[in-house]
């Protein structure tokens, strides 16, 4: 009887979705040729698809409910990577394997693959940068791409007008983006989480619209082309050489970023961020300067975006405002959310999955943004901690012989 009830509910829900998606999915009109195409098959796919998804979701919810007491066991299983990282010898082995793979990658595979990997690594750094703001400090920043744009345009404009090189601009772009971060952060500090999200979104759009409309400054929508590629100690590289060079550059960047973010996370500042994320008032009561801590988070996050902007401009040799839409911010946010907010390994994994997967599943790449949207929703509902949850460092009190004597 219960099965029948479930079945009935599933059928009703599929019918509801068929109704819901009917005008958009089934009917397709051509207003100029004045023809109507009825795509009835889509309604059928919709019905079957919804029914299957509903059944799966019900199944998983049931199973999760049944195995509630054993959830600790499940928790342990999901943190295989953490256990791997906790054991020093395994960790060393893992690092060696990764290092060899990273070094060998451009030698073994084509420059196209290397280029794709470079892009993925850029998103790793961007994700780690946003992770400081969203994951650690809990400030939802939807205009992250603005800082990326600041970095890219800094290099593009300074290179175009004054012929300055990549290495000179790299710190300048980062610092300028950090300044923009402070500039934006300063007035919005008083705002609560959701307002903050909208203001940062507005800020990101303002930067993009200004770049688009202020033609004398940024050359408008046509963008700036012929930006110099990064050079290696003054050597000019050919196309393949520069792709490989960009790749190694990004590997170094990723290592540097991981190092810095990891150190930050366990520093006084990092713990202040986490405290701020968990409870603002309690955090203030503990004597943490709320405004300063938030500003530092904002500017540090923006700094990485700025650096990546410079790298992006150097890599593609062309920038225009279309590269810095809200969708870009959404992709970076999806990386952080999928990977696990606050978790470094998670963000790296998230970036690699989200950037490499559409690249290799070309046929599915048009569904990329659809999937990103669905990921954001599903992760929030089913696994808010992300693929690899951040494990807060715990300090265990070890009994020393002195203590034993005292007691």
């Amino acid at each position, binding site marked *: 009887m219960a099965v029948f009830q479930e079945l009935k509910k599933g059928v009703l829900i599929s019918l*509801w*979705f068929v*109704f*819901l*998606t009917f*005008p*958009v*999915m089934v*009917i*397709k*009109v051509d*207003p*100029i040729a*004045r*023809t*109507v195409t009825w795509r009835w098959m*889509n309604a059928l796919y919709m019905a079957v698809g919804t029914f299957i998804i509903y059944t799966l979701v019900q199944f998983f919810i049931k199973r999760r409910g049944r195995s509630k007491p054993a959830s600790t066991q499940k928790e342990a299983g999901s943190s295989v990577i953490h256990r791997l990282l906790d054991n020093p010898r395994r960790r060393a082995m893992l690092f060696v394997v990764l290092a060899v793979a990273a070094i060998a990658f451009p030698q073994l595979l084509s420059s196209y693959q290397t280029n794709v990997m470079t892009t993925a690594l850029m998103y790793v750094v961007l994700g780690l940068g946003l992770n400081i703001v969203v994951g650690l400090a*809990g400030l*939802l920043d*939807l205009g992250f791409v603005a800082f990326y744009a600041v970095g890219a345009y800094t290099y593009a404009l300074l290179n175009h007008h004054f012929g300055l090189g990549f290495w000179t601009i790299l710190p300048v772009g980062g610092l300028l983006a950090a300044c923009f971060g402070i500039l934006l952060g300063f*007035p*919005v500090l*008083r*705002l*609560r*989480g*959701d*307002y903050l*999200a*909208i*203001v940062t*979104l*507005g*800020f990101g*759009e*303002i930067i993009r*619209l*200004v770049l688009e*409309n202020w033609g004398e400054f940024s050359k408008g929508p046509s963008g700036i082309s012929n930006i110099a590629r990064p050079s290696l100690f003054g050597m000019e590289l050919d196309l393949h050489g520069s792709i490989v060079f960009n790749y190694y550059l990004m590997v170094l960047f990723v290592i540097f970023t991981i190092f810095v973010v990891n150190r930050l996370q366990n520093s006084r500042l990092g713990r202040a961020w986490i405290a701020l994320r968990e409870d603002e*008032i309690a955090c203030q009561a503990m004597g943490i300067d709320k405004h300063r801590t938030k500003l530092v988070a904002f500017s540090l996050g923006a700094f990485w975006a700025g650096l990546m902007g410079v790298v992006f401009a150097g890599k593609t040799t062309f920038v225009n405002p279309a590269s810095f839409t*809200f*969708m870009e911010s*959404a992709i970076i*946010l*999806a990386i952080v*959310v999928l990977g696990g907010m606050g978790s470094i390994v998670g963000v790296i994994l998230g970036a690699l999955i989200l950037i490499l997967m559409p690249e290799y599943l070309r046929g599915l790449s*048009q*569904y990329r*943004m*659809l999937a*990103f*949207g*669905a*990921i*954001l*929703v599903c992760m*929030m*509902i089913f696994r*808010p901690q992300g693929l690899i949850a951040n494990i807060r460092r715990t300090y265990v009190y070890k009994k020393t012989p002195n203590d034993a004597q005292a007691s």
Partner: protein
Amino acid sequence: MDYFIELLFSGLTRGSIYALIALGYTMVYGIIGLINFAHGEIYMIGAFTAFIVATVLSIYGFPLLAIVIIAGVAAVVWAASYGYTIEKIAYKPLRHAPRLSPLISAIGMSIFLQNYVLLAQTSDFLPFPRLIRDFPFMEPIAHIIGSTDLVILVTTVVVMVILTLIIKFSMIGKAMRATSQDRTMATLVGINVNRVISMTFIIGSSLAAIGGLLIASHIGQINFYIGFLAGIKAFTAAVLGGIGSVPGAVLGSMILGLTESFATGYVSSDYEDVFAFSLLVLILIFKPSGLLGKATNQKV
């Protein structure tokens, strides 16, 4: 002077559309304290449904009045269904989650819906059929205020009056106000909070659909991306008036519409959107509670 009056009416028309969308934001925020990021997309889907239905009917040769009514009803029904379903899928499971979770979920929903329409339909701009013909009696003042503007203004006023009556006097309106004041207390006095929240989404989405239908026939073209900008602007209007306050949303929308209209008319049209975004940032910095909103103090 004519130019001034023309801009005035164009501003009021814009403002009315923003108001129809902004009400959805403000009502949802008032009740569950969530910025419904996908609301702009509901407006877009309303407009799209109206476009599809109206085009199909006009191809099959229905009379204009029938097209207007059927397309309008279809837009409202489908937008309301989307609003209801979105709430059930993306927000209801997160009702007790940390504040950021539903917001991220809403952003995901918004991206999802945009791309859903993009993939199922097209990314091109589509010409929206002209649903509102020029009235003969408007002939003498047609250079100042068009027939479409008049229809938009009148529809908005009628809708506002109905909405006010619903909120003030109907059972569900009273339940809504009670829920927005104190959700726990509302549950205690026997209000079905889940139903109230669903109704709020349905009403808000219907208003957005009406806005979508009106603006699409006013501008004459739509695509999948119209919801983003309209959503942000309506949100700006809602915040300007004080989010959570229904008269505030209308007031804020009118102010935003008028300033935009005058700014584009007298200054420059290039920075129209920059202007709206800057206004949003400035309000949130200097008066986050808005014009008619109540400042809330966080208690421990």
